[in-house]
């Protein structure tokens, strides 16, 4: 099966080469049959890659440890759900997943545009196949997921998937990020094609906008899923740690956010053509850059593969993408001239442009600080890391400006806003923002953190603008149709999904940033060493370590702590946190010790989420009192095992293995071992050794998740195909004529 998989990968590379040649030849000669053949090569690539990926999944499900990647990242005791996710826990498998997803999305894009953009499609096909071919070549020649070991050396069991990766997010977070990254290749490819052919009207933008939006949506979802996962794990820096690889996903997302806003200026007024095409090329390149950071290990990151040899090919690809992008834009700059100019700085165009500048500036800051260790190494000879504190002084003010513009942009008039327009649109939102600011100062201690306070006020301002827009739109609709409010609101969104989807996303953005400002500025963290019965206070709450717990299952031993949380003497919640130990496959750990290996442990946090605050707790199991028992057990069982082995060695070599297993089972060796492990684990309840607790009280964390969900919901509404809503058009206007302000 390994050979078959590798053969398919070789075929992948061949198909890519053929498709590139056919597409370019078809484009240069105008031979549509060749162009079509190139497009079909992408379909074939998708089919082959899906087959290869399915083969790898089957190898995992069958526990085929002759595959090196299966032996390294799975085992017979790995649950089936995680066997399915294990392929992308390795460099090799994740590259194959990339090729599979990229070829799949390329096929979808080329299929949907097969009757349109006929001049551009062949070049876009070639670009997509170059990218797919690059990753297929890496999977084929540099990180082969189908590498096998000879039968004699094949282990009977694998090392297993790391316990930390056995989390439901493993099924969704990496594939969603890959979907976002690979979807970004589609607008990139069509932008390059538009530049090559010189057909730089708004048609290619219209056709690929949906893919840009889908990429933005999936990448955003991937980022949020990762943040949520990180929040529930110990030691991953909370929901955001400004880790280089986190930043690598954030940068293309920010640039694509700029694009899905600025594209409106090109569609409506033929402006910012150079800017828009540059943004597409930039986020396409940044998506590959993000992959480079993960796979090269060039920067120290918790998510970067170490000791990788893939950096050089990636640098080459990035160099080609960057220089060809700049060269193409310069070559076609005459055809990219704007049809209109900004008439006034007090206009929607100016606000959109300013918002884009802020987003790009934010990307530049993140890029600089992320890459600073390498820049400083090149300049000074010393690697200097700046870490999260260097982001805050720049990103926070830019975020504040961005929130302000999020509120102002959609309400201000196109071309030139009048004073009357400003007054009509902004009185309510400004008043609401001020009211929230005053309430925050008077009712909470928000005044002690000016930046957070400003964010609360600006966030409320944005919420005010969105509420006002929905109210006005629904009221106008009700005036026409007399529908109930809820029906009018739903119909409003259906009739103009892009606009109202955008408003929902803006609402979510404001809520999310309020959550981030609150949770980062007013968080209380405390670490304490507690014995059962002892307490610690944090953020106005009292945490009492009630008692220890032990849970034994086939997969793990869990040592936990029950914590009682009170506030002012009143019961708030009872939390259970635990640290679980999964059996190690390292023989050096001993027959008993392998069940208590801290290298194979993960923590389950005790979390109480509320609308206004989260209480987060974790406790590290203190196994010190069990160590003498564990060591004694290892000595006893090793001696017993060696005695059995000594007997078995008297037999012919060919019979030894089977005889050993028979004797071990017959003598009750494993049963006794398991009973000993259970007995030792139960001893944990009988001592009152102190345990290290970490407790965190964070306000408004739920707002972050809620806001992110709203952003994604808004994006989802915007990206829905028109056909889905065309059948549900609103009823015809009522007979009674009414004055309705323009909604579009």
């Amino acid at each position, binding site marked *: 099966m390994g050979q078959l998989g590798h053969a398919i990968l070789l075929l992948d590379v061949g198909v890519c080469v053929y498709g590139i040649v056919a597409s370019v030849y078809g484009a240069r000669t105008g031979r549509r049959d060749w162009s079509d053949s190139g497009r079909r090569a992408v379909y074939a690539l998708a089919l082959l890659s899906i087959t290869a990926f399915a083969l790898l999944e089957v190898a995992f499900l069958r526990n085929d440890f002759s595959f090196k990647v299966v*032996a*390294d990242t799975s*085992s017979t*005791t790995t649950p089936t759900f995680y066997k399915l996710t294990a392929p992308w826990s390795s460099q090799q498998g994740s590259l194959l997943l990339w090729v599979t997803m990229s070829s799949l999305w390329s096929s979808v894009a080329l299929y949907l545009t097969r009757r349109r953009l006929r001049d551009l499609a062949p070049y876009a096909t070639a670009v997509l196949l170059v990218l797919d071919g690059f990753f297929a070549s890496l999977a084929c020649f540099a990180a082969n997921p189908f590498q096998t070991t000879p039968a004699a050396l094949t*282990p009977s*069991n694998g*090392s297993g998937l*790391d*316990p*930390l990766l056995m989390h439901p997010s493993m099924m969704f977070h990496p594939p969603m990020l890959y979907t976002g990254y690979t979807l970004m290749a589609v607008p990139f490819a069509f932008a390059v094609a538009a530049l090559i052919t010189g057909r730089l009207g708004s048609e290619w933008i219209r056709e690929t906008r949906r893919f840009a939006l889908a990429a933005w949506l999936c990448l955003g979802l991937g980022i949020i899923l990762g943040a949520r996962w990180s929040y529930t794990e*110990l*030691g991953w820096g909370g929901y955001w*740690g400004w*880790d280089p690889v986190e930043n690598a996903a954030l940068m293309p997302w920010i640039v694509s956010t700029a694009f899905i806003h600025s594209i409106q200026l090109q569609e409506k007024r033929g402006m910012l053509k150079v800017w828009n095409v540059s943004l597409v090329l930039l986020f396409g390149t940044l998506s590959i850059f993000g992959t480079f950071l*993960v796979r090269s290990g060039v920067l*120290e990151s*918790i*998510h*970067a593969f*170490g000791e990788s040899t893939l950096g050089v090919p990636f640098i080459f690809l990035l160099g080609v993408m960057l220089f060809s992008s700049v060269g193409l834009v310069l070559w076609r700059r005459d055809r990219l001239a704007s049809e209109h*100019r900004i008439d006034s700085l007090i206009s929607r165009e100016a606000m959109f442009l300013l918002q884009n500048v802020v987003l790009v*500036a934010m990307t530049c*800051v993140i890029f*600089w*600080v992320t890459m*600073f*260790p390498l820049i400083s190494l090149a300049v000074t000879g*010393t*690697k*200097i890391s*700046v*870490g999260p*504190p*260097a982001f805050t*002084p*720049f990103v926070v003010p830019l975020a504040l400006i961005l929130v302000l513009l999020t509120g102002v942009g959609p309400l201000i008039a196109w071309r030139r806003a009048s004073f009357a327009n400003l007054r009509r649109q902004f009185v309510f939102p400004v008043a609401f923002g001020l009211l929230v600011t005053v309430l925050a100062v008077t009712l909470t201690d928000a005044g002690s953190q000016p930046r957070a306070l400003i964010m609360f006020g600006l966030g409320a301002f944005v919420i005010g603008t969105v509420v006002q827009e929905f109210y006005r739109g629904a009221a106008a609709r009700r005036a026409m149709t007399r529908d109930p409010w809820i029906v009018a609101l739903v119909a409003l969104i259906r009739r103009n999904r892009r606009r109202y989807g955008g408003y929902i996303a803006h609402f979510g953005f404001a809520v999310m940033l309020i959550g981030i400002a609150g949770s980062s500025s007013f968080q209380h*963290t405390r*670490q304490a*060493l507690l014995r059962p019965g002892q307490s610690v206070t944090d953020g106005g709450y009292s945490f009492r370590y009630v008692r220890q*717990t032990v849970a*034994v*299952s*086939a*997969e793990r031993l869990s040592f936990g702590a029950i914590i009682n949380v009170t506030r002012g003497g009143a019961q708030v919640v009872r939390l259970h946190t635990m*640290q679980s130990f999964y*059996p190690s*496959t*390292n023989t*050096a750990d001993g027959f008993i010790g392998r*069940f208590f290996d*801290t*290298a194979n442990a993960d923590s389950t946090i005790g979390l109480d989420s509320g609308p206004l605050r989260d209480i987060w707790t974790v406790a*590290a199991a203190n196994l010190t009192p069990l160590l003498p028992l564990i060591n004694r057990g290892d000595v006893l069982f090793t001696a017993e095992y060696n005695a059995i082995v000594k007997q078995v060695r008297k037999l012919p070599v060919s019979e030894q293995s089977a005889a050993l*297993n028979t004797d071990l089972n017959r003598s009750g060796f*494993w049963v006794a071992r398991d009973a000993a492990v*259970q007995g030792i684990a*139960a001893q944990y*309840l009988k001592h009152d050794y*102190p345990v*290290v607790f970490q407790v965190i009280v964070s306000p408004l964390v739920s707002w972050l998740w809620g806001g992110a969900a709203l952003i994604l919901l808004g994006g989802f509404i915007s990206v829905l195909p028109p056909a889905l809503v065309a059948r549900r058009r609103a009823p015809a206007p009522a007979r009674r004529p009414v004055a309705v302000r323009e909604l579009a």
Partner: protein
Amino acid sequence: MDPNRKRAIRLTVALTAALLLASALIYVSFSAGRDELTASQLLQKAKPGGQYILAGTVENGSIRRIGEITDFRVLSPNRRVAVAVSYTGEVPDPFAQGRAVMVDVTDQGGSFIGEVNSLTTKCPSKYQAASGAIKNTAGIPAGPAVVGS
């Protein structure tokens, strides 16, 4: 005002703002940064009271936990030099011998103290798992699900 003049003023303002932002960024980066060092570099460069970022691999058998304090040694890439670090507080779940870590340390006269909450370890999907598979990996039979909770 003449539109061309207007555009020139806007461009100047924008470029000035960009220049100021870039200057501030460069200044903050160099002034707020800490040297990211390997164990051997740290031993050469460290000065009492100095703060550094130590990156390397946790030496096998070097981890000792006493109450809130975790002592361990971080190896340089050539594995010839190791630095002892005393770290207080919770350690991340993936922290274990043989794994890559980064930790902010302060030189306190020859001993290195790790700053609370500064210890980071790689996401476990990003290092090769140890290939030490053993013959029998029978788990504990699913007997009584919970003991004493």
